[in-house]
């Protein structure tokens, strides 16, 4: 069942601020262009792409942290219109966001109890202080921060990175969402503790039927944790499909390049050595397919026209002239 869906989402940022106050109007940053993505209950969808390609923007659009320039967000098939008031708070209750950096996403001044208690209060889940306490304990239990009593009164700086991220997850769970968007939830964590957090997310999705969007730049990680992977490049989606199929039989040259470039000690032959150029500017993105300047197999048409979506079966699709 599709819980949360973004349709043709586009986001242009204007009025960027320079280092010293406003330095005149800048052209818009076309951070996200025409992105459609659907999250299913109980399933993990990965959104993969390089730094700056617009992943977080998609996440924030879905979570309605800011409004889309165009396109719409649908919750259980209903378009979301409200941006304030009770209706919007209701949306907030259903869709939650987890941030990349557990060191930054908890207010250093508030205790764990406050961080978890507030959403319970705001959304009316807690009826009294004792009830709130019980619920907080329950949440801590769910994210395996035990013994619960010990963690409740800690300040963020008294927690390790993995523990903080767990608190952040618990906070998101506190509102009892149906969809959870995790924006690079482990990229700031040490390799050895990443796994625990990811496992927790996986378990939650499976147990509570949450729809989970897992945003990452680590395509190998996505292969392990997501049923579906969607690849993004320079603000656009370029390929999507079931994770195994996508990682093993990628069709878009960028996906392939990504797979080739990812470090892999198991690799038999090292990837060919060519320079691939730089990622494009989002202020003035290349016309046509945005990947064409770096594409090893670009056709003349690639620079003219953006390719339409090509279905490849099993829910695997791509935007590439070569695939047509």
């Amino acid at each position, binding site marked *: 069942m599709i819980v949360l869906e973004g349709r043709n989402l586009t986001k242009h940022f204007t009025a960027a601020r320079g280092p010293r106050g406003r330095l005149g109007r800048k052209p818009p940053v076309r951070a996200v262009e025409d992105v459609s993505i659907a999250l299913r209950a109980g399933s993990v969808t990965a959104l993969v792409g390089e730094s700056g390609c617009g992943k977080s923007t998609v996440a924030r659009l879905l979570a309605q942290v800011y409004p889309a320039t165009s396109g719409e967000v649908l919750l259980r098939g209903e378009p979301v219109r409200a941006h304030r008031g009770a209706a919007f708070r209701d949306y*907030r209750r259903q869709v*939650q966001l987890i*941030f990349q950096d557990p060191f*930054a996403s908890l207010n*250093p001044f508030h205790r764990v109890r406050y961080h978890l208690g507030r*959403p319970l209060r705001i959304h009316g889940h807690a009826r009294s202080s004792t009830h709130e306490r019980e619920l907080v304990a329950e949440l801590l239990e769910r994210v395996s921060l035990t013994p619960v009593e010990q963690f409740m009164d800690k300040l963020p700086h008294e927690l390790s990175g993995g523990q903080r991220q767990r608190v952040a997850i618990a906070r998101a769970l506190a509102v009892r969402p149906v969809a959870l968007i995790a924006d690079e939830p482990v990229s700031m964590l040490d390799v050895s503790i990443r796994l625990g957090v990811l496992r927790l997310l996986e378990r939650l999705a499976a147990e509570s039927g949450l729809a989970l969007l897992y945003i990452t730049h680590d395509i190998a990680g996505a292969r392990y944790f997501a049923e579906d992977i969607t690849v993004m490049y320079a603000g656009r989606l370029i390929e999507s499909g079931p994770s195994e199929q996508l990682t093993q039989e990628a069709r878009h040259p960028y996906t392939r390049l990504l797979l080739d470039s990812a470090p892999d000690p198991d690799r038999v032959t090292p990837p060919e050595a060519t320079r691939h150029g730089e990622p494009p500017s989002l202020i003035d993105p290349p016309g046509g397919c945005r990947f064409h300047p770096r594409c090893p197999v670009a056709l003349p048409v690639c620079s003219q026209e953006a390719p339409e979506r090509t279905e490849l079966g099993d829910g695997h699709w791509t935007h590439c002239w070569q695939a047509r």
Partner: protein
Amino acid sequence: MKIKTGIGILAFFTLMALFGPLLIGADPAATSEAGLQGPSARHWLGTTQTGQDVLTQIVYGARVSMGVGVLSAMIATVIAVAVGLVGGYVGGAVDEALSVLTNIFLVLPALPLIIVLAGYLPQRGVASVAVVIAVTGWAWGARVLRAQTLSVRRRDFVQAARASGEGPLRIVFFEILPVLLPVIATSFLATVVAAILAEAGLSFLGLADLSTVSWGSMLYFAQNGQALLIGAWWWFIPPGLCIALIGTGLALVNFGIDEIANPRLRTVKARRKARA
């Protein structure tokens, strides 16, 4: 270490301002015919030309000087917090307008403006002087706070609070404000120093209420009485020293706060343990 010294100095002067007058009891304005006496057992810091006891004046003056400093810093900080937080959090045209206002007050030279304003003041009591100083002294704090608010507002925990459904007021006061407390404290302390100096300057120029004893007015009288020329150093040195000491105390506390926020600034007892 620094912060301890600073707090020590401040505590000393605060206690002096609060309880000193009770201990001393005497009227700081009381004159006597024992004018211009050097320090002695009876007058620890000597007397002024009109036989007022310098120590008593210093003790009472602490109230006024620190009072003006704290009062105007409080007013200035409230303005700064309001302008900075609102501008930084609300953004858009409001922010633009507040920024321009802030910058205007920032570049206008404060002391000349204070002098001009004070020159017009009909009442030169402690409160009105404090207000004038505050009116010209809030901009720096507002600017720093706005910049900080802008950056804190973008911090993940604020976004997270928003995402979990917190309202704007609660975000400003419960999420952003606590984080800014060190900045507010720093700016408050800096304003206290500036205000004490401004009050002293005004009194020294005779533009504050000279019938209240403050360190600034003591200096005015010392200067008027040519304490320097007649060698009455005990009349002229203590008030200035007190101002400088209190400023030093405040600055030390401030640097201490800075060092907590930015550990790189800490001074290190270096290289002793380095390799042989």
